[in-house]
C-alpha cells in the first residue's frame, strides 16, 4: 500500500479583505466590484513559498520524523531560480544531508504532477517522502487575479506504513493549452479569455484525465465522496461534477471565501482540508489542471481515524484558516508585494549583503536554529559556541547540537520599535527564553500591536530576515510568534 501517511498545512495569518481591494480599485475596474466578498490569504512581508513550505512541513511532521528519504517542493513562485529551494526547506527542518531533494515547478499542475511522481517513486523498502506544495503568486494591482489568488502551503508525508489515504489510481495527460503563462523574465501572468479557459480547458481536459483514473480504480463517478478541483474563482466545480456524474455534495469547496486559490499548492491544500473532514473508507478524487490534467484517486483507511485522534493534532488547513486576522489596509498588501514604491526612509538603505561563506559555515544555526547543549553542565544555549555560557561552567568544546525550532518559548523583554526600518512598523522584538534553557533577542512576527506582554508564550517560525534588493538575495532566520495555544 502506498499513500499519504501524514498531512499538514499552512495558511498565512493575514487575510486581505477583498472589499478593501475593490473599494480602492473600483474606479479603474468597476467590473470587479461584484467580487469584493470574503478574504484572501496574504503572506506577511517576511513570508514566501519557502517559509510557508517549512511551516506546512512542520505541521505535517508534528514531533515525530521517522526516516525521511526525500523532500520535494512544488511551486511556481520559488524565491530562487537557481539555488535549490527544497534544500532550504531541508536545512530549516534539519533533515539533511542524507536526503533526496527536488523542486517541481513551471505549471499550476506542479503540485499534483509532483505528487504522482513522488508516490510512484516511493522506495518499496520503506522510508518516506515529504511532499510539499507552496505558492505565493504575484499579481498586478486592480486585476482579477489579485482577488482570486491566495497564499498557502500543504505538506504530505508519503509512505507505505501507516497510510491514511491510499493511492488507488492516477492518470495524467499533457496538452499545451495556454490559458495563461508567465515568461521567464516576467513578474506577472498573461491571461487569455476566461470563458474559453472554462469551456475548452477545464470542461474538456479534466474529464479526459478523470475518466481513465476512475476506470483504473474500478469506480463509478457516483462513488466519489470528495471531489477536489481547484479553479480560481471556484465556479467550475459543480458543472464539472455534473458533467462527470459525480454527486454534487462531493464537490469540495475551493476555499475561495476564506483563502483564495493557492496555485500549484491548491490541490494539496484542498486535499488536506478534505482529509481533515473525511472518514475511513471514503473515496477522494483530486484533479489538477494546467497544460493537461492530473487525476488521483485515494481511498481513506482505518488509520485515518487513528490519525485524527492523535494529539497534538496538526493545525492543518482548517486550524490555520481559523487563525486569520483580517487586513483591511490594501496599501499594506501593495507595499508588501512591491506594487507601490513606498518611501522607506534612509534607514532602509543599509546594505544587507550576505557572506555566503559565513552562511554556509553556520547553516545549521541560521537555517536550522540549532544551538548547543553543554555535555558538562547540561545548559542549553544559542548559538552553539566554543565555551559554555553558564557562568558556573565555562567548559570548552563540550556542546552538542540542540535544536530550538520546536522548543516552547516565552517573552522576557520586548519593545515595539518605530525607528528601526521594518516593512511593517513598528518592529516588534525582544528577548525570548526557551523552556529547557537558552535565549536570544529575537525578531517577532505576526504580532498584533498592543497584544505583546512579558511572559507571553511564543513559538519559533522560519521567516525572511532581510531582503538584499541590490543582489536579489534574501536571508532567512527564525522569529518568535505568539503560540497558537487555545486559539485554534
Amino acid at each position, binding site marked *: 500500500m502506498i499513500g499519504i501517511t501524514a498531512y499538514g498545512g499552512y495558511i498565512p495569518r493575514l487575510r486581505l479583505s477583498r472589499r478593501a481591494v475593490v473599494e480602492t480599485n473600483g474606479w479603474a475596474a468597476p467590473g470587479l466590484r461584484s467580487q469584493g466578498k470574503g478574504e484572501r490569504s496574504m503572506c506577511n512581508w517576511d513570508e514566501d513559498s519557502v517559509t510557508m513550505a517549512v511551516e506546512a512541513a512542520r505541521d505535517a511532521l508534528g514531533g515525530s520524523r521517522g526516516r525521511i528519504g526525500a523532500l520535494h517542493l512544488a511551486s511556481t513562485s520559488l524565491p530562487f531560480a537557481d539555488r535549490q529551494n527544497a534544500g532550504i526547506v531541508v536545512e530549516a527542518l534539519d533533515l539533511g544531508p542524507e536526503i533526496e531533494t527536488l523542486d517541481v515547478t513551471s505549471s499550476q499542475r506542479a503540485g499534483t504532477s509532483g505528487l504522482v511522481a513522488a508516490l510512484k517513486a516511493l522506495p518499496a523498502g520503506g522510508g518516506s517522502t515529504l511532499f510539499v506544495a507552496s505558492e505565493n503568486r504575484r499579481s498586478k494591482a486592480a486585476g482579477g487575479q489579485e482577488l482570486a489568488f491566495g497564499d498557502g502551503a500543504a505538506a504530505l508525508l508519503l509512505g507505505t506504513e501507516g497510510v491514511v489515504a491510499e493511492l488507488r489510481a492516477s492518470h495524467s495527460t499533457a496538452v499545451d493549452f495556454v490559458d495563461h503563462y508567465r515568461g521567464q523574465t516576467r513578474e506577472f501572468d498573461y491571461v487569455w479569455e476566461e470563458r474559453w479557459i472554462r469551456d475548452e480547458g477545464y470542461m474538456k481536459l479534466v474529464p479526459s484525465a478523470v475518466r481513465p483514473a476512475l476506470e483504473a480504480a474500478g469506480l463509478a463517478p457516483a462513488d466519489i465522496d470528495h471531489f477536489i478541483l481547484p479553479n480560481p474563482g471556484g465556479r467550475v466545480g459543480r458543472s464539472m461534477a455534473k458533467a462527470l456524474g459525480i454527486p454534487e455534495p462531493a464537490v469540495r469547496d475551493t476555499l475561495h471565501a476564506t483563502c483564495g486559490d493557492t496555485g500549484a499548492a491548491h490541490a494539496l491544500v484542498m486535499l488536506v482540508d478534505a482529509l481533515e473532514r473525511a472518514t475511513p473508507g471514503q473515496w477522494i478524487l483530486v484533479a489538477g489542471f494546467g497544460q493537461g490534467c492530473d487525476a488521483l484517486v485515494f481511498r481513506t483507511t482505518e488509520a485515518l481515524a487513528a490519525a485524527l485522534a492523535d494529539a497534538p493534532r496538526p493545525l492543518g488547513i482548517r486550524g490555520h484558516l481559523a487563525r486569520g486576522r483580517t487586513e483591511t489596509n490594501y496599501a499594506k498588501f501593495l507595499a508588501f508585494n512591491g506594487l507601490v514604491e513606498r518611501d522607506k*526612509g*534612509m*534607514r532602509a*538603505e*543599509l*546594505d*544587507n549583503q*550576505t*557572506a555566503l561563506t*559565513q*552562511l554556509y559555515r*553556520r547553516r545549521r*544555526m*541560521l537555517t536550522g536554529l540549532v544551538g548547543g547543549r553543554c555535555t558538562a553542565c547540561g*545548559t542549553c*544555549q*544559542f*548559538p552553539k*559556541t566554543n565555551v559554555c*555560557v*553558564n*557562568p558556573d561552567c565555562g567548559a570548552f568544546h563540550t556542546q552538542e547540537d540542540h535544536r530550538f525550532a520546536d522548543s516552547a518559548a516565552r517573552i*522576557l*523583554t*520586548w*519593545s*515595539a*520599535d*518605530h*525607528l*528601526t*526600518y*521594518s516593512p511593517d512598523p*513598528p*518592529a516588534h*522584538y*525582544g*528577548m525570548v*527564553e526557551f523552556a529547557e*534553557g*537558552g*535565549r*536570544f*533577542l*529575537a*525578531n517577532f512576527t505576526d504580532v498584533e500591536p498592543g497584544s505583546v506582554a*512579558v*511572559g507571553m508564550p511564543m513559538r519559533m517560525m522560519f521567516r525572511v*530576515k*532581510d531582503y538584499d534588493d541590490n543582489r536579489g538575495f534574501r*536571508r532567512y*532566520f527564525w522569529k518568535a510568534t505568539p503560540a497558537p495555544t487555545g486559539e485554534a
Partner: protein
Amino acid sequence: MASGIRDRVAIVGMGCSKFGERWDADADDLMVEAYTECLRDSGLETKDIEAAWLATAIEEIHVGKGGIPLAFGLRLPYIPVTRVENFCASGSEALRGAVYAVAAGACDIALALGVEKLKDTGYGGLPQRSRGALNSMWWANYSAPGSFAQLAAAYRAKHGIAPEDLKRAMAHVSIKSHDNGAKNPKAHLRKPITLDTVLQAPMVAEPLGLFDCCGVSDGAACAIVTTPEIARGMGRKDFITVKAMQLSVSNGVEAGHNSWDGSYFKTARIASSRAYKEAGITDPRSQISLAEVHDCFSITELVTMEDLHLSPEGGAVTDVLDGFFDSTGGLPCQIDGGLKCFGHPIGASGLRMLYELYLQLQGRAGPRQVADPVFGLTHNLGGAPHQNVCSVVVVGRHDA
C-alpha cells in the same frame, strides 16, 4: 595585588566643544575647538604631550580609522597616537589609555580626546549600520531605543509597576535634565519641558517617546593628564585626581543564559562595585557628590541609579520622583544636562561627563555649581542592555 589607580594620575586640563547640530563644523574643527580650550586650561603646549588616545565610535560616517585623524588635526609631533573604540563608552576608553600610560610611567603627560560627527547622516537618530557578517544574520533588527526599551518591560514585570507609573518616573528623568541643560551654554538642547510634552510626544520605541531619548549631536571633548607630582610642579594646588577607573564588558551571559532578568545592567553593578572599592568609597549614596551617568534613554538612567548602588533595588522610581537626583536633590545627576540635553557625540561623551565633574570639583561650573562637591562619578555605557560595555570613573579633589 594591584594597587589601583587611586590618586596616581591628575587631570590638569580639559576642554569641550559646543555640542549640537554643528552644521558649521567638521570633526576636525570640533577636535581643535575642544583641544584649544584644554591647552589654555592646562597652560601646556602641544610639544609637551607625549602620547595621545583618540576615541571615535562610528567610523562608517566619520574621520577614518587609526590615530592619524588626531595626529593630523592637532599636528601632534610624531608621538604615539592610538584610536580606541568601545561603542558609546569610547571616550572613557581614551581616558583609560592616557591615565594608565601616565600611571605606568610610560609617559608624563598624555592626551585623551573623543570626537563624533553624527549629523552627516541625513536623518535623525544614530546611523543604521552593519553589525558584522554573522551577527547581521541572526540578531534582531534592533535600534538603540528599541534595545534599551527592553529594560522597561522587564523592570515593570519585576517590580510590579504599572506602565503609566514607570512612564511618569521616566518623564521626570528627562524633565530634570532639560532643566539642567537650559543652564548650560554648551548644551545641545536648552529648553525646559513639561510633563505633558513628554507624555504626548511621538513614540519611538515603546515605551520610549521622543523625550525619553537623548540628543544625537556633534561634539568633541578632551583631557590632559599627568602625575600629581608634575601637577604640583606646575603650580596646581586644588587639582583633580582619578580615584577609580573600571570597565566591565558583557561576556554573553545576559544575552544567552537565563540567569539575567533583563531589568538591569550586570556590567554596571560589577564596574561600580569595583570602582567604589578602588576609590575607597563605602557608602556611595552619601559619599558621591554628583554623578554624570549614561542617560542615553530615560529608562537607562532610572535603572542605572540602582546599578550604581545609589538607589536601593526597586527604589529608583521613588528616588527619581522625590527629586533626589535633581539639581537641588541629595545627589545631583546630569547637572550639565547629560546625554539627554548636553548631547551625545558618541566618542566624546565619556570625556564630556568628566569635563563637567572637573569644573564642578574646582568650583568653576557657574550657575550650575553644586555646593562643595568631593567625589564625582561618570558612568559611560556602550552597546545594549543584553550585551554592553560599562565604564565607571570616580574623580575627586586630590586631598579627598
